[in-house]
């Protein structure tokens, strides 16, 4: 139980509770179940993609192309649906995942085989993928009436009051919880980020791991692309512009070390949820739209500082405890 308090995730959890309490004191309707369901809906896609981003950051990389590849796979899914309405929905989902995997593996190959630093690779593919969206759609949009009913309604289908969008993201969370915590490859991801030399000594294939994380992140992004386009019933060339920074922010708030080696899925999901709550709360308590950005920025910095300070304090506690043992 004492260990719980020492976890970064726990700090964040307390911080979230604190915000929920503060906001609901001003606006009781914030606490309605419906509102939380909405927040879940809003953060579902972000948490999914942030998990992909997490894996890459844990290996010491970064992916700036998630926004663009999300747009590209989403646009492909929408166009496919528009021109071939007969294709069943699960095929479209599979195809958008496949496109995402492909885009991710391009990143992965460039990083692992051509040894280009991840930030440069993805900075480049960010422009390339975004450019391909323009090429693909020729500047036009795919709008609601051009999509089939099944396509548009997929993320909204709900069971027990919770939409399939949320179920999909929960599924992703569980899958990757298992992957990262209960498989060798998953743990090797942490190894690579923690110490490249050491991971070589224990026989971890660095290139393989780098390739895997970028490809998996691409796959998640591809799925997210379909969900995004279906949810907003619009595929545009500007879809998800700037989304990469949101996913990175979710990771950073969630306590992922930006230099690699540590970070948990629970932390990232909490980080995404935190961002969703802040956004939702700012709207709920009628903060002027002009204030929202500044407050978000302030809260991000504040959360990061608190996180860092608490973590340092905890480590010092551990050290002190150790010296007593000796």
């Amino acid at each position, binding site marked *: 139980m004492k260990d719980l308090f020492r976890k970064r995730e726990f700090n964040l959890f307390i911080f979230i509770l604190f915000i929920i309490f503060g906001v609901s004191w001003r606006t009781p309707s914030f606490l309605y179940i419906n509102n939380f369901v909405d927040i879940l809906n809003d953060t579902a896609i972000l948490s999914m993609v942030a998990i992909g981003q997490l894996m890459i950051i844990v290996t010491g990389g970064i992916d700036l192309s998630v926004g663009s590849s999300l747009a590209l796979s989403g646009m492909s899914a929408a166009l496919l649906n528009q021109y071939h309405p007969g294709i069943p929905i699960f095929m479209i989902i599979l195809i958008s995942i496949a496109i995402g995997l492909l885009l991710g593996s391009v990143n992965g190959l460039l990083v692992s085989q051509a040894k280009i630093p991840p930030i*440069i690779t993805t*900075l480049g593919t960010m422009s390339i993928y975004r450019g391909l969206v323009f090429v693909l759609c020729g500047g036009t949009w795919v709008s609601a009436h051009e999509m089939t009913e099944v396509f548009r309604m997929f993320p909204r289908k709900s069971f027990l009051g919770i939409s399939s969008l949320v179920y999909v993201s929960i599924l992703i969370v569980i899958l990757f919880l298992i992957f990262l915590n209960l498989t060798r490859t998953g743990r090797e991801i942490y190894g690579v980020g923690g110490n490249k030399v050491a991971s070589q000594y224990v026989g971890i294939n660095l290139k393989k791991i780098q390739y895997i994380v970028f490809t998996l992140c691409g796959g998640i992004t591809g799925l997210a692309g379909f969900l995004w386009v279906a949810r907003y019933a619009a595929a545009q060339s500007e879809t998800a512009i700037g989304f990469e920074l949101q996913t990175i922010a979710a990771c950073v708030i969630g306590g992922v070390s930006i230099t690699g080696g540590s970070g948990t899925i629970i932390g990232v999901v909490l980080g995404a949820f935190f961002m969703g709550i802040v956004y939702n709360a700012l709207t709920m308590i009628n903060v002027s739209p*002009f204030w929202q950005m500044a407050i978000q920025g302030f809260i991000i910095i504040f959360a990061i500082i608190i996180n860092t300070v608490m973590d340092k304090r905890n480590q010092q506690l551990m050290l002190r405890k150790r010296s007593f043992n000796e």
Partner: protein
Amino acid sequence: MNKENSVLDLKKIRKISLLNIIWQWEIILLFIFIIVIIINSNLSPYFLDYTNLMNTTFNFIEKAIIALPMIFVIICGDIDISVASIIALSSVFMGMASQAGVNTLGLVAIGLFSGTTAGFLNGFIITKFGIPAIAVTLGSMSLFRGIAYVILGDKAFTKYPASFAFFGQEYIGNTMIPFELVLFFILAIIFGTILHKTTFGRKVFAIGNNSTAAHFSGIPVNRIRLIIFAVTGLCSGLASILLTSRIGSTRPNIAYGWELEIITTVVLGGVAITGGKGNIFGVIISIFIIGFLIMNIVVGLLLILAIMLPELLKRLKPKNSFGNVKK
């Protein structure tokens, strides 16, 4: 270990040949630059027109001026993604001052001061709490631009003194050389000298290579990083003056998305994103390459291909019989 080092030296000596000189990073960039010029002049026969060439520089010199301190930031192993937001913030403060009747000189002072303060704040949080720069500037990126939105809302500042237009719109005498361009070259010489000819520059490289070792060698690591972030803020403030003067108005969404372009420029210029390596000439060439292109799919491909070249060459090389040397 000694042996390996001496081996590397031998390799370096062997490297000096004409082809290897051609394959220097800066030469490759220069080559790309010439290709860009030729393609552009094919697309438009007027491209090489002296006046046009000079006028085109208006569009990227502000970014270039921020790229200069960004070289230091990245060599240090840090990154600053809040620079574009600092531009917006400084511009808003200048707008407020101008509205209150402050003269041109005062506006310049305010622009520089607010930029420096913002940069200093970044540096302070980064060094004081030991948080990675990308995390802090990710937050301050929203914060600074957010403050600009708070102050300005959906309005714009449009009233600037007539003499303020000098910085971003005027030329030196009647040479058709923009003031901005001259200012950039002066700054480039200053920053280049500091980076390559002073102990401060060497310390920056030392920090980027191994900050712990640098610390133990008596280099005040955090103070230097703090200075660099403050200078980056200062240059962002300067860029803000130029941009505000050039477009003669301020909106909170000014310079939106510039940070990635600036970082791309610096990285294409051969500065290692992992820190510790880079030089100013490469970045200057890269500024002009990207400047004469417009950020798009071409730049993306260019970036990846250019960075890939050295590795590609290594790949082409047949594996020697001694096997692979792993580090």
